[in-house]
């Protein structure tokens, strides 16, 4: 099943399950979604529950939060998360903080979703990763699926969760096929929020990633195996809450860690993970936690530079080899 179909089926099942769930955003209805994630939903659930919006992110995000305050369960699609910057005040100040500020009186069960991070050939304004920004905000939950199983299980978790959830997809994964375990097809298949998953156990070094970079880490692990390095691969799935336990447990075993993300390095996801692992398992570290990140520049358009600007499988292999002192 593709990630696209996994997301689409999860949306469809959850809308069928709960009448309070509706989806809104630019082109989600008639056009079937700019990336076709909402394909067929308008036909199934009608225009009241699949709402095409004007191009007014601040407005429709605030509107979604207001609807959530009233007990509806909106799913707000950002055509890409780059445009969530228009609306970020509502995500942070209206959605994330209100439960706390109101001493528990007003909750905002809302999902903000859409493709996040680098795509291909879309230039500097359309390639930003917002994982670190959102995971810094208390009150939010932040999820980032990698494969079809994640996509289904986390999307269902996000929709059912009573708190505001930022759900970071990846455009380049939408069309990717993944084998789906049978239980993941179940309508009640829900993954836990706040739990990472070990995609491949290993003994020598831990590779940590979320979203598309999980796939790169798995490929890198393959190549490392050929060099006699047994890498463990952790798929974070949830960036907030962060599964510190899983990270510390792994590093206690492997004593080495490489974190990979496509976003910018400064104050990135990698910085946080390197820091929590230092906090939780410093004495087990045989080498500094290495972070691999997008080069610290706006995204260039030219194909050669764009490729250079992002981590590659080779980068992961190279750095992992280095932290294992095999280089």
């Amino acid at each position, binding site marked *: 099943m593709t990630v696209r179909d996994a997301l689409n089926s999860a949306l469809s099942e959850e809308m069928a399950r709960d009448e309070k769930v509706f989806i809104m955003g630019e082109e989600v209805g008639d056009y079937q979604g700019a990336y076709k994630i909402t394909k067929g939903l308008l036909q199934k659930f009608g225009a009241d529950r699949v*709402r095409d919006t004007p191009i007014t992110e*601040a407005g429709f995000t*605030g509107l979604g*939060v207001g609807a959530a305050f009233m007990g509806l369960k909106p799913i707000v699609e950002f055509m890409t998360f780059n445009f969530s910057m228009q609306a970020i005040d509502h995500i942070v100040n*209206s959605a994330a903080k209100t439960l706390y500020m109101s001493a528990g009186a007003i909750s905002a*069960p809302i999902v903000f979703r859409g493709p996040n991070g680098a795509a291909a050939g879309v230039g500097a304004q359309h390639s930003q990763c917002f994982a670190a920004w959102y995971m810094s905000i*208390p009150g939010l939950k932040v999820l980032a699926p990698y494969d079809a199983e994640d996509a289904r299980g986390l999307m269902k978790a996000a929709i059912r969760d009573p708190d505001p959830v930022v759900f970071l997809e990846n455009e380049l994964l939408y069309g990717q096929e993944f084998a789906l375990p049978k239980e993941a097809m179940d309508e009640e298949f829900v993954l836990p929020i706040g739990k990472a998953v070990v995609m491949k156990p290993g003994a020598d070094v831990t590779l940590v990633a979320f979203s598309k970079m999980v796939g790169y880490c798995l490929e890198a692990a393959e190549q490392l195996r050929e060099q006699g390095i047994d890498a463990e691969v952790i798929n974070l799935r949830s960036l907030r809450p962060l*599964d510190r336990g899983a990270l510390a447990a792994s590093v206690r075993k492997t004593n080495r860690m490489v974190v990979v993300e496509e976003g910018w390095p400064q104050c990135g996801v990698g910085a946080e993970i390197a820091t929590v692992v230092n906090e939780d398992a410093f004495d087990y570290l045989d080498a500094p936690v290495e972070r691999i990140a997008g080069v610290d520049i706006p995204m260039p358009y030219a194909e050669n530079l764009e490729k250079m600007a992002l981590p590659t499988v080779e980068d992961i292999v190279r750095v992992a080899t280095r932290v294992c002192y095999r280089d």
Partner: protein
Amino acid sequence: MVIETPVPFKGHLIVPPSQMVETTKSEIIDMFTQAYMMRRLEIAADVLYKGKFIRGFCHLYDGQEAVCVGMEAALNKQDAVVTSYRDHCIHLGRGGTPLEVMAELMGRVDGAAKGIGGSMHMYRREANFFGGNGIVGAQTAIGAGLGFAFKYNKQPNVAVTMYGDGAANQGQLFEALNMAALWDLPVIFMCENNHYGMGTAQDRSAKSPVYYKRGDYVPGLKVDGMDALAVKQAMKFAKEYCVAGNGPIVMEMDTYRYHGHSMSDPGSTYRTRDEITGIRQERDPVERLRKLITEHNLLDATQIKQIEKEQRRIVDEAVEQAKASPLPPNENLTKNMNTNLENIVVRGVDSQTFHALV
């Protein structure tokens, strides 16, 4: 009884309601009682602030009471309201108590938000009051969402989003208006025009400070916001209009704030004392209600005094109770981080400090 409001409504793309307002003796007395109490409450807040019982921001509503009182006379508590940081009296209007307001201002556990929210963040979920919002303009989009939910749930209610003349220039208002109009949402966009956004007079921040027309293609109504009966009449009209499925409406309430913007603003550098005094003398909303009572012989002087005394007592008592109310317990620091606390752990100031969740 029927009373004629002195200032005619002005309509934009809509025929305004009649100036003849149906009311009752008890409604007028209630309005006066509430408005008077609001006034006393804000004056008490001023005193407490100066006495350092209240800290941070504190935005008082005195001068604008008729808007709240008139609005509530036309709404019920299934209708939804969201406003700005200038929310103390709105909380009262929605059925909150003076103690809730006072204790919140002092950051005490009996406050509307248990001391967590503060002056700008009072809520009353059971009366569909969604706050108090500190971000100028944010409540306009949120308010559209409240109305969206009514429509979605096919509930015959209206959402009111209250914003200032300063907020009336924020882009998201125009985004919200467009969606509300496109989708026929039952939303009253209510501009409380007190003529200043902080120190900026309306015509220095808006090319067109004609707020009831600023919805452009959305009908609008201008109302004397110092006249509670006029506000009631207009809001009744507006609610009927919205609930009938006509979409949103913009209301401009012509009103005034006596105090500075917040407690740090003396409120006298950007406007003349004469201006303030003039409005106090000629348009004060509390005095206006008092005059209605005397003119129509609804109560005699002693009875009015009695009401005033009682309301002062209520406020004074609330102040004392609030002062006696404890600070929130320390464990509330991390309370209500999330609704679903599965796997949630709250980090304290350092790597060894994690807070238990309650």
